[in-house]
């Protein structure tokens, strides 16, 4: 783990019309770390990911990507919001895979991966195509590249969405419940893919309900409840000896078929 964390979140607060969705979130993710973000629904996990990409502007707090301020800056005691252009320049460093994927249906699979490289990174078409082909090959999509998203299976769409994010060469990948929209038989496939990605040294934050993934792939588990991360530690420790009783209760609820396994 390098000295500067890839992602550093400090005191993040987000309110929606008086409802506090994030209530002071602190999180550091080092290079190559895989953090599973778990917690009951409505606890603020998705809001946190949306704030980390500045799709939602947090009301308070700071985000630092690779040591650089993202969204708003602090110089001494003065806080200034960054210009839209500055935010856009940082965004490719953060790859977000939406829960609903949000592939672009009017473009072929490979064009979904090529287009942002052309528009945002200003790569040449040849270079972007080469990069896209390499990614699609890695993800087992070579024979699907000319298809449109609607003619792909759920698992294939998921992989296109991952390829689209990876093509921007992000420092950090964010996954919002990557298995929730999939048929049960595809869940294993996507989890294997995430494991493979983790093995390449990619820094990842994965919002998930798959406790098996959290236990087996993640280095750390961060547990969120009511807008705060109330437990954050090595996966094995959080799974077996959580210090907060809320975590223990939640784990009991979602661990299938083994009420007394701890």
């Amino acid at each position, binding site marked *: 783990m390098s000295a500067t964390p890839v992602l550093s979140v400090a005191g993040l607060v987000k309110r929606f019309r008086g409802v506090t969705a994030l209530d002071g979130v602190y999180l550091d993710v080092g290079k190559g770390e895989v953090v599973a973000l778990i917690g009951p629904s409505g606890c603020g996990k998705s809001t946190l990911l949306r704030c980390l990409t500045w799709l939602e502007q947090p009301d308070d707090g700071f985000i630092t990507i690779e040591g650089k301020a993202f969204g708003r800056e602090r110089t001494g005691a003065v806080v200034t919001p960054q210009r839209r*252009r500055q935010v*856009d320049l940082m965004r*490719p460093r*953060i790859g977000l895979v939406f829960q609903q994927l949000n592939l*672009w249906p009017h473009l072929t699979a490979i064009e979904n991966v090529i287009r942002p490289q052309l*528009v945002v990174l200003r790569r040449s078409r040849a270079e972007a195509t080469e990069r896209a082909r390499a990614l699609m090959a890695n993800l087992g999509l070579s024979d699907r590249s000319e298809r449109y998203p*609607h003619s792909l299976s759920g698992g294939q769409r998921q992989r296109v969405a991952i390829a689209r994010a990876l093509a921007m060469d992000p420092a950090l990948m964010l996954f919002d419940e990557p298995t929730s929209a999939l048929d049960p038989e595809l869940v294993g496939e996507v989890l294997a893919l995430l494991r493979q990605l983790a093995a390449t040294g990619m820094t990842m934050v994965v919002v998930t309900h798959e406790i098996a993934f959290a236990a087996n792939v993640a280095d750390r588990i961060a547990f969120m409840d009511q807008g705060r991360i109330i437990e954050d530690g090595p996966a094995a420790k959080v799974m077996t000896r959580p210090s907060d009783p809320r975590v223990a209760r939640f784990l009991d609820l979602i661990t299938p078929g083994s009420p007394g396994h701890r």
Partner: protein
Amino acid sequence: MVFDPSILIPYLPLLAAGTWLTVKISVMAFFLGYAVGIVLALVALIPHWVPRLVVSVYVAILRGIPFIIVVFLVYYGLPFAGVRLPAYVTGTVALGLFASAYYAEIVRAAIVALSPGQFESARAVGMSPLQAMRHVIAPQILRALVPPSTNMTLTMIKESSVLSSITVADLTYQSLVIQGNTFAPFESFAAVTLIYWAMTAIVAWAFARSERRLGRIEAENVGRSALVASFLSFDRRPAS
């Protein structure tokens, strides 16, 4: 009785003039209707009840009355307001406004059908709002517009025949003149049938071609909602 199309030969210039006027009226009404329709659709998307109500009342009125009545109301109503315009101007405006109610709903449905996630995913990779518009939003809206617009435009071309009843010398009007002169109604109307059919066929072909150039839309976004479906089907259109 013998079917004798040659009886129409002296009247070919008249048919040509009528065709030309129908084409002109249809083209102008198309642009007028679409321009007004886009404005109405954008107004209807303002998140406030007043603009939304205004647009839905406008749409409800124009959808709820037969086009021929719209034409009569405008044609005989405008002089009360002290406005005297040539019949073909009044007719074109009436046709354009009639179509605008439908185009408005087509445009609105195409915009609403787009999920906000499309814009967000473009922004999240680092596209500016303008780039997101150009590469992700606009192409999807444009192609979603084509199929329902085809139907409405064909309907509008055919509805333009109604303008013959306010003395607009369009194709239908000329066919009535010719059958009056020749006492050969079947030949006259058969000729006009062919011309209308050729016009609508050309327009349908052009739209289909533009749809292919924009790429085919998949079934997920368009044609699923009852609203869109109601504009795709002919029989729910108010009869005239």
